[in-house]
């Protein structure tokens, strides 16, 4: 492990850990819809013990119902958003543009959670800072 990096499993002292991952990835959950796609994408890391993935939720979607159950059922290693902001990760993956993604210090890969980009603009309140009618920017939504 590169000693200059923050411990990938920050929060838990190394002696309590079983695996020593080299990188940490943050899976950003917005609502259950985007979370299902996020998990589909994270199958890209299956079998790789060099990578530890954590999950957080932007707490920005009006459809926040079911997120706690979703995370609990799948035993996602979950950390609160405030902690995600404060900690260092090597990569964040988000399947929605909502919330304060800009407060994360690591690179963020943004992906759609549906069949590409088809919406004129998000009608979901709190889903970002885009102006209604800014159809030209829909691809970032």
């Amino acid at each position, binding site marked *: 492990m590169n000693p200059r990096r923050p411990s990938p499993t920050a929060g838990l002292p190394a002696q309590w850990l079983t695996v020593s991952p*080299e*990188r940490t*990835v943050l899976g950003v959950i917005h*609502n*259950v*819809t985007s*979370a*299902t*796609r996020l998990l*589909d*994408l994270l*199958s*890209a*890391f*299956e*079998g*790789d013990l*060099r*990578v530890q993935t954590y999950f957080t939720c932007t707490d920005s979607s*009006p*459809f*926040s*119902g*079911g997120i706690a159950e*979703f995370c609990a059922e799948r035993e996602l290693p979950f950390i609160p958003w405030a902690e995600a902001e404060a900690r260092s990760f*090597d*990569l964040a*993956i*988000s399947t929605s*543009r909502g919330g304060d*993604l*800009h407060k994360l210090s690591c*690179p*963020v*890969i*943004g*992906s*759609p959670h*549906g*069949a*590409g*980009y*088809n*919406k*004129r*603009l998000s*009608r*979901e309140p709190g889903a*970002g*800072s*885009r102006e209604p009618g800014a*159809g*030209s*920017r*829909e*691809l*970032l939504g």
Partner: protein
Amino acid sequence: MHDGELIPSAIVLSHEEQRERLRDGCPEAVPFSHVVGDPCMDQLHASAPFRDAYREALGVRAGQRLVLLTSTWGGRSLLGGGPAVVRRALAESPREEYRFIAAVHPNVWYGHGGWQLRSWLEPCVRAGLLLPPPATDAWKAAICAADAFVGDHGSLTLYAAAFGVPGLLAAFDTRSVAAGSPMERLGAALPRVSASRSLREQLAEAVERRTGDTGAGAVAGLVTSYPGEALARFRRLCYTTLGLSEPEEPVFPRPVELPAGRRPAHGSPVGEPLLVDTEVSGADGSRVTVRRYPAALQNGSGSHVRDAHLVAEEGEPDARWAGVADVFLARRGVPERLFARYPGCAVVAVPLAGESCAVHLRDGRVFTATWARASWWAGPGVAASAVYAWLSRERTGESRGGAADLLVDSGGAGVSLLVMRRAGEPAADLLGPDAAEPGVVPER
């Protein structure tokens, strides 16, 4: 964008067409865009061989048609303003001929509460509507299993149409759909549900129209620019960003799990590829020991494997195994299809009733293998491998020709397996009834 500053370091797109729209609207984001394809579409295609398994898991009987009702969220969605279309679909369709499944956007479930949605739709559920919970992949299985759909402007409608399922629109919110997007084209291509005519009739017309239709078909090409590659391309992007070498193991789309309720302990519809070691013994070579190991976990050739063959199931998603399998376990009785697709495959086993199987050889010979009694391990897979081992001996002249009573050991005490040569097998058409099946991926 956030205060004029681009947030994501990389923007994943599924089709090159989106990059063009991005160029028009937000050119500063184009250098950060990566077209990887659509992982969901890839998964649907990897699931296509298991259509029958999904139908069975969803309780679709022989001869029944499965209609998928898809609703996104919001007042202008299929469910917006009430379940009139759902009620109508159930009301107008004979129960013995149709089965309906509603795939409802999680935002409807969580926006109103699952109890509330179920309560609203309870009359329909009592009439036979399947309402799988959100946050599962049941909707993907439903797209694979469906004969037709009734949808709206949601992604599921687009996926269903792109997968080749014929359908109608019960709602379509043109105002929320981006100009020039695939969804806009779909809205223009698909017929709307007419209130004045029988829904059954309209669905039947949609099914017929599919063959000559180009509108919805054109949308299929706009869902992904890299069929089958989305996960691999996404993984490359992630590992590059992480500064790590990619794992040697390839990553590829896997079939969707069988919907809960009527599935075996392991949810995948496809069994793992197996490296099968066999040992033929006894004076007349009629005792066969079969030991099966997970092929994917083998590291080189260990001493636990001496005389091995590789067994894969039809629909195996990992091309590495599908390409080198000696034996394929078919899902349906058209072995020629597998022989044509996999030149390295010597034997295709087709399961028969009672855990037995028909073993087809490339040269046209067919053997039936029938277990004398039931045992938890005595299934078509072990039978096929035992016959394969026996035939390998036959080829070298060590075994008798057309029939044998094998004593097979695998998970426990030997079970007798009667092997008989079947006479006069008619040659099946290479392009059998599966050739025109919706959603079956062409050879890549």
